[in-house]
């Protein structure tokens, strides 16, 4: 027993004290298992990967259960009803579970004229796309399935595949309602993807990195450091992003592919039981995902509205170590989840408030309004950065610097100053500490001096 406690303490220490650059829990735990318990590395890495996958699956499945319940409650309240009140107590807590059991017991049908293989596979394609994009989404500093430095790009790329599941389902069903749904979906995709991409590029440009963990940590401190309040252009960009994100997850007013009042049930008309529910797990999963992505890009991610960790521990959460790091990160996780869930709730609110758009209205909204607005905002943010105009973060202390003043950063140091997670002092660009950056910096300087010598 005592040995076990000691091992647990050691492990906790490691979780807090591991490499400050990557901050990955999996790395710490697997290193511990390999070095102390002598486990076979391949087994440990497989186990850690499975564990991360299971946790992400829990977020999607648990999230869907919660969101479906919330959807009913929110819909009920907006329409002046109570929503579910019977199953599982006063607030109908177990309504989703009851639905799940009902769906499990339904017959799995496949229409006679359908392309059986594609029909059966389509729900999994949609679900896997939604699930796969969660891999690169950080939930707090270092609490991420796979820490890749192009995380933003990866998430958007993989989430884009969900559309393919919908189109396949519509096509393979051999039903005109489904086919109409798929056609609408395809037309919708080509209209929202451009403004969505433009909106996502803007915070990436301000941060100077595509690493979601770094983007989140660059917004540490007071809420004025959030990119939402960076300048007026980013403030508008967030709402354009939210509109396009709404379109990308097929939520009303952009639920044309489903359109239950026109197309029976659109692309999933022919589906039943568990396969049908996979589409909805995918939908709620991606709703959470785009909300979480928006909260990392614009709403400070896991940073609360005020620098709590700074007050309690004297340092930002990403700088802490040991037990205080775990505590600070847990608080950050709560802030992150809260932001994402609020954004999802607003999506529900919008769904039960606005009527569905026609396809030409969707295309008009995306191409004629969102795209030009996003493009102008993009130029505006470039100009703001170019002239180093004051950002919202200048109002309050604990300002986050990063490569905010890009031209200056370009003159004084390499791009990798974005590696610096937290810089409490203003207007001071730290010298590159990291050895990799250092080596490159010297190599480059050497090259420059060689040239001058010629």
């Amino acid at each position, binding site marked *: 027993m005592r040995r076990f406690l000691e091992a647990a303490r050691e492990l906790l220490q490691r979780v807090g004290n591991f490499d400050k650059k990557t901050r990955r829990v999996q790395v710490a735990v697997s290193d511990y298992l390999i070095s102390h318990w002598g486990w*076979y*590395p*391949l*087994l440990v*890495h*497989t186990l850690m990967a499975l564990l991360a996958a299971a946790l992400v699956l829990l977020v999607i499945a648990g999230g869907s259960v919660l969101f479906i319940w919330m959807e009913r409650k929110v819909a009920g309240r907006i329409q002046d009803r109570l929503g579910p009140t019977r199953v599982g107590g006063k607030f109908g807590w177990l309504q989703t579970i009851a639905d799940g059991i009902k769906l499990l017991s339904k017959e799995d049908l496949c229409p006679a*004229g359908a*392309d059986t*293989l*594609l029909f059966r*596979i389509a729900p999994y394609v949609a679900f896997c796309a939604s699930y796969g994009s969660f891999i690169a989404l950080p939930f707090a500093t270092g609490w991420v399935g796979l820490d*890749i*430095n*192009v995380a933003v*790009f*990866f998430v*958007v*790329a*993989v989430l*884009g*595949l969900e*559309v*393919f599941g919908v*189109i*396949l389902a519509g*096509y*393979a069903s*051999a039903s005109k309602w489904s*086919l109409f749904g*798929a*056609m609408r979906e*395809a*037309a919708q*995709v*080509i209209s929202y*993807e451009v403004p969505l991409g433009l909106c996502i590029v803007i915070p990436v440009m301000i941060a100077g*990195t*595509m*690493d979601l963990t770094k983007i989140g940590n660059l917004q540490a401190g007071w809420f004025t450091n959030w990119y939402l309040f960076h300048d007026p252009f980013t403030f508008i960009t967030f709402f354009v992003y939210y509109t396009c994100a709404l379109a990308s997850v097929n939520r009303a007013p952009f639920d044309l592919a489903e359109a239950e009042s026109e197309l029976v049930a659109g692309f999933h008309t022919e589906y039943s039981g568990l396969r049908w529910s996979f589409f909805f797990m995918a939908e709620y999963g991606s709703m959470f995902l785009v909300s979480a992505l928006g909260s990392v890009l614009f709403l400070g991610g896991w940073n609360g509205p005020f620098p709590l960790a700074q007050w309690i521990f004297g340092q930002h959460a990403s700088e802490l170590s040991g037990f205080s790091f775990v505590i600070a990160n847990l608080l950050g996780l709560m802030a992150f989840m809260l932001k994402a869930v609020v954004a999802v709730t607003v999506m529900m609110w919008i769904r039960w408030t606005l009527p569905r758009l026609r396809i*030409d209205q969707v295309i008009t909204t995306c191409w004629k309004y969102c795209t030009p607005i996003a493009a102008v905002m993009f130029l505006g943010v470039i100009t703001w950065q170019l002239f180093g105009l004051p950002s919202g973060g200048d109002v309050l202390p604990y300002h986050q610097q990063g490569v905010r003043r890009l031209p200056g950063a*370009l*003159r004084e140091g*390499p*791009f*990798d100053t974005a590696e610096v997670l937290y810089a409490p002092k203003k207007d001071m660009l730290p010298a590159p500490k990291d050895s*990799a*950056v250092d*080596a*490159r910096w010297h*190599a*480059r300087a050497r*090259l*420059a001096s060689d*040239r001058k010598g010629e």
Partner: protein
Amino acid sequence: MGEINGHALLFLFFGLLTCLFSLAVVFSANVVRMAFYLILALAATSGLHFLAGADFVGAMQLVLYVGGTLVLLVFGVMLTAQNPFVSLRTAGGDWIVAALVGGILLVILIPVAFQVGLPPSEASLMDRRAERETVVSTEPVSVPTATRIGLGLLGVPGDDVSGYLLPFEIISIHLLVVLVGAAYLARAKRRVASDARGGVESGVAESE
């Protein structure tokens, strides 16, 4: 040791998936199924990219081929299809041409595959461009690939070398011209519509 084994195992897995689905593309007759297998093959290829640490290229592969092109392909098939499930029969001549082109590509690719990993020759080291590349290649793998690609494309800040900025700009302008041209060709032709049809119909055509 264990890690190397895992890496090799995953490489084998993704490589086999790519080959399998590529063959499935060739041998299936249904267009949409072909597109589906092509997606799986390309996604497995992007898995290989991720495995090699080129995550930017991998994500790019997903966005461009899987996300963009194939959605358009399926959209096109759905718009143009006359019967529910379009199927293609490949003629004998097409097989020969395809085998020829594929064979030539294979002949080119196999020597290239065996050349990778050899150190650069002395002649190339004398070249100025090669010197830049060796400077880049001394960096450890931990430096983000996206940064390296960006610096390589647009030039290193502080250096007087401009990278591929000019070709990049020329291509962007070219694409813009193509886009404007496509929009011009696809716009509603008002005069023709109002001549050929009645007033109400031309109004509909214009609003579209």
